[in-house]
């Protein structure tokens, strides 16, 4: 398997608190993996480690074949991030923000690329307004444009539709689905939004208190938990109603 992201025994401790514990997973090139878990499950911590913003306590991370802990600058030009927890400068217009990040990522023919993204993400008049004056939905689209400015081979999305109204959130999901289909990018999506995960992800890792609780395609997880939706699966995990993974696998094997 040609892995875009290869994580082995990843662990992050903050003093006595273990935020991520022995996390191992592989994301094939062109796949969309969802990290699903409640608050404090370790999703954002994992994304920060994948980007080199956070140094793991132990473990290995290889992205596009490069060792991220030693040679992150070799691969960062081919990655990008969208997160509601990291902002863009409010006083800069959307166009100025894209110009700055386009230069940071070394994008060729930047004005054309910005126009292209503005058209795809329907930025239009927002392009020349200060980022801080935009609505949440408009900010999300600009942040997505920034995340796509270098046409990344690996895209990390941390709760990309948090705080958006249902209509805008649906638009963003449709855009991401189309973008992934058209470009073949590898996407890692951290979310606790179940419809989003069901719609976008080929594969899902359920995380709880920093550990992998279970993994599988959304439909497989739903079947394994004996539920109808991912939301019910999530609630089973979060509220401790689930049978143990071993039990579930036995049931699955029997079926």
């Amino acid at each position, binding site marked *: 398997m040609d892995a875009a992201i290869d994580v082995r025994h990843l662990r*992050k401790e*903050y003093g006595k608190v273990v935020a991520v514990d022995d996390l191992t997973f592989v994301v094939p090139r062109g796949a969309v993996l969802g990290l699903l878990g409640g608050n404090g499950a370790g999703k*954002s*911590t994992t994304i*920060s480690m994948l*980007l*080199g*913003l*956070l*140094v793991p306590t132990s473990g290995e991370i290889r992205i596009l074949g490069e060792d991220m802990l030693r040679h992150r*600058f070799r691969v*960062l*030009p*081919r*990655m*990008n*991030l969208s*997160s509601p*927890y*990291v*902002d*863009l*400068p*409010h*006083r*800069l217009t959307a166009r*100025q923000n894209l*110009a*700055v*990040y386009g*230069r*940071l*990522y*070394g*994008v*060729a*023919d930047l004005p054309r*690329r910005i126009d*292209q993204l503005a058209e*795809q993400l329907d930025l239009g008049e927002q392009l020349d307004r200060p980022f801080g004056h935009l609505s949440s939905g408009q900010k999300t689209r600009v942040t997505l444009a*920034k995340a796509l400015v*270098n*046409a*990344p081979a690996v895209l990390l999305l941390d709760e990309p539709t948090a705080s958006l109204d249902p209509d805008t959130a649906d638009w963003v999901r449709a855009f991401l689905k189309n*973008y992934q289909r*058209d*470009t073949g990018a590898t996407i890692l999506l951290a979310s606790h939004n179940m419809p989003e995960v069901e719609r976008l992800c080929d594969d899902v890792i359920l995380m709880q208190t920093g550990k992998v609780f279970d993994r599988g395609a959304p439909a497989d997880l739903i079947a394994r938990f004996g539920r109808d939706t991912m939301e019910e699966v999530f609630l089973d995990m979060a509220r401790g109603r689930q049978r143990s993974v071993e039990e579930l696998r036995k049931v699955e094997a029997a079926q």
Partner: protein
Amino acid sequence: MTAVEAQHGSALRRVTALVLRHWYILRGSWLRIVELAYWPAVQMVMWGFLSQFLANQASYVAQAAGILIAGMLLWDVLVRGQLGLSISFLEEMWSRNLGHLFASPLRPIEFAAGIVTMSLIRTVVGMVPVTLLALAFFGFSIYSLGWPLVAFFFTLQMFGWGVGLAISGMVLRKGLGAETFAWAAVFILLPVSGVYYPISVLPGWLQTIAWALPPAYVFEGMRAVLANHAVRLELLAGALLLSMVYLAIGFGCFLWLFNGARRKGLLSTQGE
């Protein structure tokens, strides 16, 4: 979608990207530009009138017109150097932008080079109009210092950048609660910098501290030029050497604190 060729880009392009980011903010607000010259102008006018008064009273000041104004202007070069760098760093903290920046191919040394460049731009934009005001109000031209002015300027800027980088690292590590240091830290050096009086007036132990810092060499060198029309190369050399050492120490501190922030996960969580 048309394929976009994402080149890896040079370090220079990344540095200019960061400069561009801060230039957009600076040029977008005339208030920010005025603010750069505001305090230097107020101080220059105050010290200018004080100099005029003292010129008739004190032989030391009378023998070299403009010595206090020159001291004030060069001191502000140091202050603007440190503050200009710290403000660029604080802008990133206030806007919660560090996570995006350091998830990009921007290296810490390129980040430092970007905010150093911006500090230089802020200092020039702020100080040049004030030097012209000094000429208009009091007939004193800082440019009469000649070529040593260039050495004084860059020495003080480098020292200011070193202090600014160390403070920026501390703010990154300790959060915006430590922001006050960014605004005030350099002023603790004023009494031992010999800006308005010779280092020889200090007690012996303070003189030792003063000569361990570049400003003492600059301001003694400045007085030598203005009062005796002598360029003391040993002072210039000492100032340049020490400034480079402090700049290296400042960047080392920044890098150390930056790596600590990466271990603690502060890059993506810092902000107002």
